[in-house]
């Protein structure tokens, strides 16, 4: 008995000690006045010219000084390091007047030469800067500095929304690129621990256009953390000040605990949609290709889906049924008068019968005698999307279609979607960071590799795809807002009629904001909560 008691005590002591020593959730030590939140993975680069992923883009947004800033709240281009700017009548000459007194974080002055050097570096083919593509033919762009405070950029042709492009070009000291360590923005990169965090420190020489002073927060810490459970725990303990992307179930959990903390900002600009593989190169049997190419088949599928259930059940009510690629949150371009197929089971069945299908019991059979069976591919790891796929599976069973759901990891999914075209249907989401439809050109131009249902067409495969190409080119080149809106409305109507993408829902923007965090003005465009990082501060901090 004594032996048993002693051994049990020893065991408990051992467990408690070793258990307590390493706590389940620990964030890095918070410095005074520092704000903290998480990012999903290590930024791939700190060189602002080479940014080609989301987290690197965030670091650039927070650290880089730019000539023009696209204000995520007002959705207007505003001067930043440039005091003023103008575009010539033919749209080919941009003139910037530099803001006097602007300095880099190492106290050197920001001059037009620095700006010119930075822009030229971005345009160089060796830099391979993704943003250079926005200039259409970067080699033909000329940058001049007639005096130390003036910068002139000569474009080969008019580019729609050219102002926004400068939001992505960081102005760095001439001949001294520093990977974010010397910047003209509100913060500088101070420390980076791989897989742990990125620490940004306040730039004392930065002057906010709005307040005339440096950023309020002494620094920012971006912890690299993908685990949602840990993030929620640490947020609840006050270790993080905000969560900028919440899953619906965690949103509800936080909301029950403290309704003020969890905020549903309404529909985002993003869409969740399903589409069928219409590529002639797809290794699919001919009868399946015939189904997917049939407009009536696609419309019937759209009519069989209960979008209200998808929003209510898969997103716990935090999503809005979608019928077009322009979300109602995109007030400038949204059109409520687009007529799209709504849920109507009888009409769906009639459509299918009209297209040559017939029902054998509860199974749908096509004109050649094949039972309608196909798979829906989606990516693993997104619970809401997988629930939607299962809900759609039952909806389509009601019109006799036998659907299987397959979730793959992203690289394998992309290989099928974009390289081998070895898939039947796909259910994915599309992120729209820019409300202007011009940013969606790659999606709609039939020759583009991102033209998901039939990538890289040599010539448009159908008349309606040709019409979409025409209208998108009109909106890209026109200077009249009215003409552009007309063109985009026409594209929306074609898409509603033809259903190449069957839109499902617009997920809402779900965020959590600590009650101690002040200055937050949530916007619909990314970065939703920290677009005004220089105005954010913790209550009670200096």
């Amino acid at each position: 008995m004594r032996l048993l008691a002693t051994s049990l005590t020893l065991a408990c002591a051992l467990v408690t000690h070793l258990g307590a020593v390493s706590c389940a959730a620990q964030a890095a030590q918070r410095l005074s006045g520092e704000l903290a939140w998480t990012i999903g993975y290590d930024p791939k680069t700190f060189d602002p010219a080479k940014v080609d992923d989301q987290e690197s883009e965030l670091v650039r947004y927070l650290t880089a000084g730019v000539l023009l800033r696209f204000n995520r709240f007002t959705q207007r281009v505003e001067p930043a390091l440039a005091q003023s700017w103008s575009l010539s009548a033919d749209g080919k000459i941009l003139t910037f007047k530099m803001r006097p007194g602007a300095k880099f974080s190492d106290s050197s002055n920001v001059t037009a030469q620095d700006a010119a050097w930075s822009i030229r570096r971005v345009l160089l083919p060796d830099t391979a800067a993704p943003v250079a593509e926005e200039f259409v033919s970067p080699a033909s762009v000329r940058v001049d500095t007639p005096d130390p405070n003036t910068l002139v950029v000569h474009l080969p042709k008019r580019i729609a929304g050219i102002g926004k492009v400068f939001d992505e070009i960081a102005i760095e000291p001439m001949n001294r690129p520093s990977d974010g360590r010397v910047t003209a923005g509100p913060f500088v990169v101070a420390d980076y621990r791989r897989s742990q965090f990125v620490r940004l420190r306040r730039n004392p020489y930065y002057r906010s256009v709005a307040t005339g002073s440096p950023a309020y927060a002494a620094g920012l810490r971006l912890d690299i953390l993908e685990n949602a459970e840990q993030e929620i725990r640490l947020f609840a303990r006050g270790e993080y000040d905000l969560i900028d992307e919440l899953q619906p179930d965690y949103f509800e959990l936080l909301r029950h605990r403290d309704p003020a903390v969890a905020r549903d900002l309404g529909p985002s600009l993003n869409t969740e949609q399903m589409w069928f593989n219409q590529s002639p190169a797809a290794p699919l049997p001919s009868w399946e290709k015939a189904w997917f190419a049939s407009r009536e088949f696609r419309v019937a599928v759209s009519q069989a889906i209960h979008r209200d259930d998808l929003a209510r059940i898969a997103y716990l009510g935090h999503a809005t049924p979608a019928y077009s690629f322009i979300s109602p949150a995109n007030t400038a371009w949204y059109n409520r008068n687009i007529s799209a197929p709504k849920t109507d089971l009888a009409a769906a069945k009639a459509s299918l019968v009209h297209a040559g299908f017939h029902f054998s019991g509860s199974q749908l059979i096509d004109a050649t005698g094949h039972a309608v069976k196909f798979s829906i591919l989606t990516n693993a790891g997104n619970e809401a999307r997988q629930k939607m796929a299962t809900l759609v599976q039952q909806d389509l069973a009601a019109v006799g279609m036998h659907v299987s759901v397959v979730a793959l990891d992203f690289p394998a999914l992309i290989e099928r979607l974009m390289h081998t075209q070895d898939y039947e249907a796909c259910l994915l989401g599309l992120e729209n960071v820019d409300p202007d439809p011009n940013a969606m050109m790659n999606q709609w131009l039939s020759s583009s590799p991102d033209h998901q249902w039939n990538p890289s067409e040599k010539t448009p495969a159908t008349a309606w795809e040709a019409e979409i190409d025409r209208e998108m080119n009109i909106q890209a080149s026109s200077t009249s807002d009215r003409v552009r809106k007309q063109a985009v409305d026409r594209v929306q109507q074609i898409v509603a009629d033809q259903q190449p993408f069957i839109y499902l829902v617009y997920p809402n923007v779900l965020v959590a904001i600590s009650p101690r965090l002040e200055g937050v003005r949530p916007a619909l465009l990314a970065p939703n909560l920290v677009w005004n990082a220089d105005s954010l501060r913790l209550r009670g901090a200096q």
Partner: protein
Amino acid sequence: MRSKFAANCLLAALALAAIIVVAMPGASYSHQDRESTFASASKAHPAGTDALGRDRLVRVSAALLLSLTGAAAASALTTAAAAGVGVVAAFGPESIGWIAILTCDVFLAPPWMFLLMIVRSALPLSASPMSSAVVTFVVLAALGWPACARAVHKGALNLKTSDWMLHAQAAGLRPTQLVRTAVPNLLPVLLPQFLISIPAFVIAEANLGAIGLGIGEPLPSWGGMLLELDNSAMLFETRWVYFPIALLIIVLLLLEAVAMEA
């Protein structure tokens, strides 16, 4: 003896109950009652409903039958393979033994997840959920044996040099007879391996859902239900989320009781 008999009866009763629940007219593991998601226990749904309004009792029963059969078969296969390799390596010629143990060591290191991805890409996308499940358990069984084989090999070597084995050899027993006598003495290694593999395969099947294998919707996956426990939002939503794991623990204890007397 009595407890083994009782355990056997209880296991059979569980299986029978699960079959009855699933076979009852009107019972469906896939029908979504969309107006009552996360419903609590009621006459229509004795164990409530899940996130998509599907009856939890029917789903857990179907999952029990499906996953348990698959996991138990895969465990038996993998344990038998480990036993086979370990015994052959110990009692067979030295070169065979050398190759077998080298194979075990080589097998333990590589990232087999990629083999599973290759298997998934070889399967047609519209393979039925059942065939995907069968393939998953077969592959799991094929990959699970090396770790245990080494332990079996060690145990078999110890037996080979033990006194009574030397006596038996001296008495003229043939190698196959020696092996048959040796195997029951390896049960202290084989039985725990079998018992541990069952829940490991149940959960592994669910984890393989991330690369497209596993039991596909709308078939219920027991491992998938267990994985729901990692979501604190789910834990606060309903107490019924503990139902699958409670059942698994009961099944494991019953299997343990059956194995104990062996």
